[in-house]
């Protein structure tokens, strides 16, 4: 048992704090810190700055830019990044397709794709979900049929986050229609400028446009763009989704939100019910952060700790609670739209309702909270 970080980890943490606040432009970090919306260029700029500093993809294999850090160090990296208001490196690149390619792709494919992936010279989109599948990913219907050396892809993906900026899309396709559900699925990398590929925006209830449908009509994909072997896609998907759950607790960003709420609350902090609500939320966050620290301490060099599901489940609950707190603090000012030409209501207050609505997705995407409860009850509790 030790309460504190080792001298080494403490130094590491300070180094990260220093790096994040120096290499990433203040303007970008302020946008994050104030809950504003990032442009695609800001995300690119930030990730390239991290890549230059060698801290964009620390969890990748060393030869592709990884750092061999301990799980605790990765956690500290992630938390200090959030604390400094640095946008996370694009998860589709660094947490999803990057590790998959590093693990499953041919050497040639790695050399072609990994460096621009780390540097966000390629902006990846994810082509997994389909309209009729929901949490039942394996029931996907998009097909890829062999035609000479190429694959011809037809079908539709949806919930493709930030797909409007995408250069390439990694896609699960059905390559053997006769095989059982999970079998017969392959992973293809598809250039989003290919003829027959169309990205259609989906407007969300917060008025924003962050997800898309991606339609494939006879899209030709060179055979070399197949990752790994044919019909091995489900293995890669599971690998990818397993990675996705690690370090998912958005602790530092929610702490930042609650700290901001305290600043913004003003005279409302005199209301004991508001004080109780904030004090409870702070305590809940503390318990979550300590749990994240326990999990990383026990995850070294192995499978993701099963308690990762606790982090996802509880993390999104608290994230949503924090957005609800800000909304209630904004009160009637929350009714004023951000798009209002001029307003005396503070921008944070006018942003609070769309943010609250937007974060309802947190408990749905990336493995819904029902899926997390299922994992906990099956995997951990043996039910």
């Amino acid at each position: 048992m030790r309460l504190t970080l080792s001298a080494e980890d403490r130094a590491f943490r300070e180094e990260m704090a220093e790096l994040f606040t120096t290499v990433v432009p203040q303007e970008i970090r302020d946008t994050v810190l104030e809950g504003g919306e990032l442009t695609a260029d800001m995300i690119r700029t930030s990730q390239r700055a991290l890549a230059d500093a060698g801290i964009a993809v620390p969890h990748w294999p060393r030869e592709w830019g990884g750092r061999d850090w301990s799980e605790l160090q990765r956690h500290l990296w992630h938390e200090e990044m959030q604390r400094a208001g640095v946008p996370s490196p694009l998860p589709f690149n660094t947490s999803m397709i990057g590790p998959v390619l590093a693990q499953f792709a041919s050497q040639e494919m790695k050399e072609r794709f990994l460096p621009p992936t780390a540097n966000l010279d390629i902006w990846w989109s994810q082509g997994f979900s389909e309209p009729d599948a929901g949490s039942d990913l394996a029931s996907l219907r998009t097909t890829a049929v062999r035609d000479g050396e190429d694959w011809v892809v037809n079908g539709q993906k949806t919930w493709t986050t930030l797909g409007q900026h995408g250069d390439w899309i990694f896609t699960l396709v059905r390559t053997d229609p006769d095989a059982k559900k999970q079998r017969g699925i392959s992973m293809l990398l598809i250039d989003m400028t290919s003829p027959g590929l169309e990205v259609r925006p989906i407007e969300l209830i917060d008025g924003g446009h962050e997800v898309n449908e991606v339609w494939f009509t006879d899209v030709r994909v060179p055979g070399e763009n197949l990752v790994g072997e044919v019909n091995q896609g489900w293995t890669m998907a599971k690998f990818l989704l397993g990675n996705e759950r690690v370090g998912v607790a958005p602790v530092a960003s929610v702490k930042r939100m609650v700290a901001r709420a305290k600043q913004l609350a003003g005279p409302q902090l005199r209301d004991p019910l508001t004080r109780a609500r904030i004090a409870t939320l702070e305590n809940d966050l503390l318990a979550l952060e300590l749990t994240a620290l326990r999990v990383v301490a026990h995850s070294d060099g192995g499978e993701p700790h099963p308690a990762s599901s606790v982090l996802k489940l509880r993390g999104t609950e608290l994230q949503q609670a924090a957005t609800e707190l800000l909304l209630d603090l904004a009160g009637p000012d929350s009714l004023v739209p951000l798009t209002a030409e001029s307003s005396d209501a503070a921008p944070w207050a006018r942003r609070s309702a769309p943010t609250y609505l937007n974060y309802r997705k947190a408990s749905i995407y990336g493995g819904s909270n029902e899926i997390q409860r299922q994992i906990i009850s099956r995997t951990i509790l043996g039910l």
Partner: protein
Amino acid sequence: MDFTYDDEQVALRQAVAGLLRRRYGDFEERRRVVAQDPGHDPAIWQQLAEMGALGLPFAEEDGGFGAGPVEVGIVAAEIGRVLAPEPYLASVVLAGGVVAGVGTPDQRAELLGPLAEGSRRIALAHAEPGRRWADDAAEVKASFDGQTWTLSGTKEPVPAGDAETLLVTAALPEGGTGVFIVDGDATTRSTSRAYDGTRVSRVVCDATPATPLGEAGRDATAALSQAVDLARIAACHQALGAMEAALEATTGYLRSRKQFGVTLNHFQALNFRAADMYVSLELTRSIVEWATMVAATGDAARTHEAVARAAVQVSRAGRHIGQDAIQLHGGIAMTAEYLVGNLTAHLTALDHLFGDGQHHLTGLMATLQDHEALDPLAAAPQDVA
């Protein structure tokens, strides 16, 4: 004690429901209307007027139909069910209610007749930036030079503030809060689309000429508060309609949507959450209908308390049902083109329009020792007479 509607009320519900469901039953239609100015359908507004819905709360001598909170609630609930964007709550119930409560007989006839006929909209400009659901006005000030009244200051957010006629509340020179009739175009205002699709405005007065509503210089805080209470109870009905629609959509989705080879209602945990939503909804309906009946007695003090009680429950249930309706649907409910997420957005907006649950609970906390136990069956003297 009777919670059933009489035949006339049932007919009213059917008429309003028929109209609004025809127009907005396809949610895409509602989206289209909300996307363009003025953000609602003037033809529907006219039809509501023709069926008498816009004049319900007003006395016959004022050009209304002499109905009350129960009938207003029926209309509001149907609006909530389909998210009809017509500014019934803001214009008829709230602003109209202020005119009815504060105006002189002449003013009432002048403003409420056209309002009931659908030929003139009015809006109440009361909220001031940064002030939370205050009963009075502070930042907008009224001046009187012996001949004319003028107003200066900013009101925001003003629901449906693009109306022809504004009622602007202002701090009076001698203290207290007055209500003034202001020509909307005489102010500097901008109107935009709120996150739930409704319209809100910012209204700036700068020595803007104004006519006192009711007796000049008289404090209207109490009358304002009563009008707001009646708008609150109508908002509760609007929320109730939205909650009903959210639960219906959710159970329909659970019955029809397949995942892992079976429809979602094979998953007990989801069904149980739907059951909890139903429990919330039924409890809410009870207390809202009760508070409406209390409001119908016209007793302002009892109404204020009853409305706070309903609002506490509506706030909690609206969050519960709104959040879980999205969760049980999954991603599709996050999209703007699907009804359910929009119901949640509207529930959220209603919750912050006239005071959220904590605001009203704080009021109830102060009266905790005024009673031993609550007895909704205890008749007040005037009920028995």
